[in-house]
């Protein structure tokens, strides 16, 4: 006998409105349907009605956490249309801010992820250290969250010498803390029990489902836009693409932890080798672009971000298409949540699996369980679902 359990649209395991309709047989999930229709804002249409410079402020607000990636992708697109390229110093400054926001995003995700698993101490630690990164972002860009740093033709501010010293100290701190946290993650039986062997996504399925970013790399696929399609001087800055073999939720934690080290090293390298010169081109506020099209891909913290723009020669885009990493990753969630053969998924695994893709779609306390056979509906609160999720014992199979 199967039941349907709707999770969402407002639910504590993810911070934004997303509806998962799970079909369950007992505790076992047999089918899943995803509904993301709650917060479509019509930004693509809005971009068609705005001059390019105004669009920049709009794309930055598509996603608060990935704002640096969105604005970078937008600027790259418009620069491509104009046939211009940012000066070398701007490219390095863009890398520094992009990697800082990646550290901030990964720390946020790690904290949130351990919170959903019931590990509140680690959540507090990660978010405390994330503040240090936010301070650095504020120091460099002038803003804490929406950095407004990238602009068409370069960046808005140059790096102050005293900021560099501060930044290096913060990087040392973050690196030291991450080494400690990695040790905690690897030695903590609760984390291992909740994540190892849970939410397996095989490499071939990951590609088939179009997964991107750390989620794809945790499935052993070595694909990183910074390496495969370098867009902002990434061919000059050495870094390793982190992959992991186990293809489960544990792999997703490890990939993100290891990526933080890579980010730290990239920022250090960029600080050591930053060329002198201009940090932006002089481009007037209102301009027309030649007719044509351009496609920019950026490795955002959550994965590959695609912006595709078509210009008809006017001062507004004819069409502007944005494909965010989460839309690409959602399909693989449906794959991971479906039990088949000896691969079993339980309701208590839902937070771990859904959290694993770093979903960016808001939150509250409601799950309605519909019992078709008994024609009964019961509402579970936030505490119930978290309790269910934490009480789950992992039997050795």
């Amino acid at each position: 006998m199967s039941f349907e359990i709707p999770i969402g649209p407002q639910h504590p395991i993810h911070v934004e409105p997303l509806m998962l309709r799970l079909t369950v047989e007992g505790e076992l999930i047999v089918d899943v349907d995803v509904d993301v229709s709650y917060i479509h804002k019509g930004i693509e249409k809005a971009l068609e009605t705005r001059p390019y410079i105004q669009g920049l402020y709009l794309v930055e607000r598509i996603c608060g956490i990935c704002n640096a990636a969105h604005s970078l992708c937008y600027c790259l697109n418009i620069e491509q249309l104009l046939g211009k390229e940012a000066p070398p110093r701007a490219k390095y400054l863009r890398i520094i801010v992009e990697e800082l926001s990646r550290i901030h995003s990964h720390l946020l995700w790690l904290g949130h992820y351990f919170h959903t698993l019931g590990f509140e101490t680690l959540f507090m630690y990660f978010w405390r250290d994330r503040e240090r990164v936010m301070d650095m972002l504020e120091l460099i860009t002038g803003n804490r969250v929406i950095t407004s740093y990238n602009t068409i033709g370069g960046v808005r501010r140059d790096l102050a010498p005293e900021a560099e010293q501060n930044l290096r100290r913060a990087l040392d701190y973050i690196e030291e803390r991450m080494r400690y946290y990695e040790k905690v993650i690897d030695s903590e039986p609760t984390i291992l029990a909740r994540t190892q062997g849970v939410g397996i996504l095989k490499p071939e399925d990951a590609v088939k489902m179009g997964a991107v970013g750390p989620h794809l790399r945790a499935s052993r696929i070595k694909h990183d836009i910074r390496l495969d399609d370098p867009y902002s001087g990434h061919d000059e800055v050495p870094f390793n693409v982190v992959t992991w073999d186990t293809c489960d939720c544990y792999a997703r934690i490890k990939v993100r932890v290891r990526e933080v080290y890579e980010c730290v090293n990239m920022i250090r390298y960029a600080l050591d080798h930053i060329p002198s010169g201009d940090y932006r081109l002089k481009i007037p506020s209102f301009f027309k672009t030649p007719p044509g099209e351009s496609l920019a891909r950026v490795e955002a913290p959550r994965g590959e971000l695609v912006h595709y723009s078509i210009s008809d020669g006017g001062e507004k885009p004819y069409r502007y298409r944005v494909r965010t990493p989460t839309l690409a990753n959602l399909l693989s969630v449906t794959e991971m949540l479906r039990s088949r053969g000896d691969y079993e998924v339980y309701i208590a695994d839902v937070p771990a699996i859904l959290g694993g893709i770093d979903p960016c779609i808001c939150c509250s306390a409601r799950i309605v369980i519909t019992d078709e056979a008994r024609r009964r509906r019961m509402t579970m609160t936030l505490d119930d679902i978290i309790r269910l999720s934490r009480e789950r014992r992992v039997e050795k199979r």
Partner: protein
Amino acid sequence: MSEEELLRKISEKFGEKVLEAKALGKRRISVLVSTDAYKDVVRYVAQDLGLEFLSCLSGVDRGDNLEIVAHLGYSTCVLIKTHVPKDSPIIDSITDILPAASFYERETHDLLGIVFGGHPNLKRLFLPEDWPEGVHPLRKDYAPEQPKPLRGGERGENG
């Protein structure tokens, strides 16, 4: 594989069905193909050329026609484009070749009204449940409702 080589291979394989083939810049190529060849070109690029990673699938309103653009590839990105007439925007779904296209096709169906034949679950993805049927916001003839000023010349009920 270089951009020229990719362009040459696709042009040779499909001959006159390739209406336009050009490089868009570093690691970007664009091929416009006839509607009937679209699915075969996608299959060829994904399976024979090994670019099975679908980055994105977009739809564009081109006046009388609607354009579908599939973006494929890890490093070099191949844009496979095709046109369908606006009055009967029907095209074969590519979800059987690339399951990743599933959400993108639903999105394009939602926002531009293109019907993907053979899609297993062509439901609404982004628009709200009460959105009127047959209204597609990304088409150029759709103009969004303009918000009314909160305080205008005429006084409302609350003065």
